[in-house]
């Protein structure tokens, strides 16, 4: 190694180190970027509220508008949804006796909410699902046997169901893979 290379090495080291120091020094006057989840957010802000509409959080089912078509159960690649529904003449349609989702198994892929015709099964922006046992992560939506929803011609009129359905359809529109999207065979 000649003297030139020797001195150049020293110069390079000094200059590049000073350059790095200048970059870090410039960060000393930049504000931190940390979001102090969960307890030091600006007033009135929950992280859940800042999440986009498409966020795939914990699954939720609106039983009022569930048609018990079982499309979600079939679409789930890991079989974490189980629905029991049977025809009941007396009640006048399908009666669901069970709608369980194993959130411990769910991988939040969204394949179940895509085929849902009414947006009954949907992802919420909720993500804080920690619990003390695996069993408690199974979400059971049917408390008592419930009649499946039947779409009415000319739109929904029941004031209790209409807003839920409206939300559901908005969800369907957003999540519908496409206007002419995948269809049944």
């Amino acid at each position, binding site marked *: 190694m000649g003297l030139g290379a020797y001195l150049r090495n020293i110069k390079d080291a000094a200059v590049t*180190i000073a350059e790095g120091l*200048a970059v870090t020094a*410039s960060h*000393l*006057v*930049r*504000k931190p970027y*940390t979001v*102090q989840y969960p307890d030091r957010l*600006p007033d009135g802000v929950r992280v859940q509220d800042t999440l986009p509409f498409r966020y795939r959080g914990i699954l939720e089912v609106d039983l009022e508008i569930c048609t018990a078509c079982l499309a979600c159960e079939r679409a789930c690649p890991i079989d974490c949804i189980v629905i029991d529904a049977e025809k009941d003449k007396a009640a006048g349609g399908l009666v669901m006796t069970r709608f369980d989702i194993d959130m411990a198994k769910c991988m939040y892929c969204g394949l179940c909410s895509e085929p849902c015709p009414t947006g009954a099964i949907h992802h919420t922006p909720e993500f804080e699902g920690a619990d003390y046992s695996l069993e408690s992560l199974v979400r059971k939506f049917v408390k008592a046997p419930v009649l499946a929803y039947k779409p009415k011609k000319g739109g929904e009129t029941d004031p209790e169901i209409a807003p839920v359905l409206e939300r559901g359809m908005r969800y369907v529109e957003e999540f519908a893979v496409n206007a002419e999207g995948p269809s049944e065979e």
Partner: protein
Amino acid sequence: MQQLVDSLLGPQASVPVWVAYFGAMLAFGGLVVFGFVLPIAGITTWVERRVMGRIQSRIGPNRVGPAGFLQWLADGIKNMLKEDIVPIAADAPLFKLAPYVVMTGFIAAFVAIPFGGPLIIADLNVGILYVTAVTSLVVVGILMAGWSSNNKWSLLGGIRSAAQIVSYEIPAGLSIFPIVMLAGALSMQQIIKAQGAAPWHWFVFENPFTFLAFFIFFVAALAEGNRTPFDLPEAESELVMGFATEYSGMRNLLFFMAEWGNLYVIGAIVTTLFLGGGRLPGGLENAPAIVSIPLQFAVFFLKSYFWVLVAIWLRWTLPRIRVDQMMIMCWKYLVPLAFVNLLGTAAWMVVFPSGLEAMRIALFALAVVLGIAFLIRVRYHLRRAGLRRDELSFNPLAGARVPGLG
């Protein structure tokens, strides 16, 4: 110390003078260790984490106490309560002893380190020699820790540390010599007295060789303190945690206390040797002790702590060098240059027996120019990043921006 005791006792003392000296030393020693060294090591951890957080666009500890200031106490308490695990295959006596040896090496240095003005535990006439000697004790402790852990990663860390500290003693020592020659003394207080209060009367600007010696000494001191870019003995990404891999709880903490405490030692030595210690301008030094001593302490402390901050800043900027490059850097770069400095200073002293005032001022001006050039570069980086006004803050404790994109 003796001066201080003398001035307090006055001429007619009722107790034998050595008893007074001894008592004062013990009291001052205890005060220094428990009132200064341990808190400074702890607070430095907080400072380091805040500075590093800011450099990394994070906040750093901000939960315990105001702005997280008491984090170091919380960490200390946590570590004391943690289980002290000794691996079954470890050499238990050595394993347990090692952190104390490291701690001893670092605390003993404070005996001869001045705190500004007459404040010093013992103004040994071999002061600087004593400091370099006792700080080498650290390597024994680290080697003990590395060997006794019975873990190959620890052993590699210990061996690296031994090679590193022993090698870097040489450029560090050689860079101290020019100062000793200029001051004509080894005593810390005498070295400070040989310098003036004005920056261009500090030894760092005495001549071009001491200017260079200052950088060599600082680099070598960082290496001896196992700081990045020389943190090879711990080298987290390579050796897991090096010599401290198997340690837990308080023993682990002692190693780190020594590391952070050592930072202050480095700063204090640099200040003493090169930066005029706690010298005050004009008549302030002859002011009453109640005024001058706190002032001198403050000046000395600020100067020292500035270098602690620089070491922290360097650590969070630079990557780590490899073990063979560390040796190359020491033996091929620092040692020859340190020899050049030694001879150059000697020659300078022969040619200009009382120094060259023009050169002092020129070197000081050079340092100022370099500093300004650096600040311009910082501004360039800020501009290029295209930040908005609300993304900048000069408040060192600034909180985070509002979450969300944009």
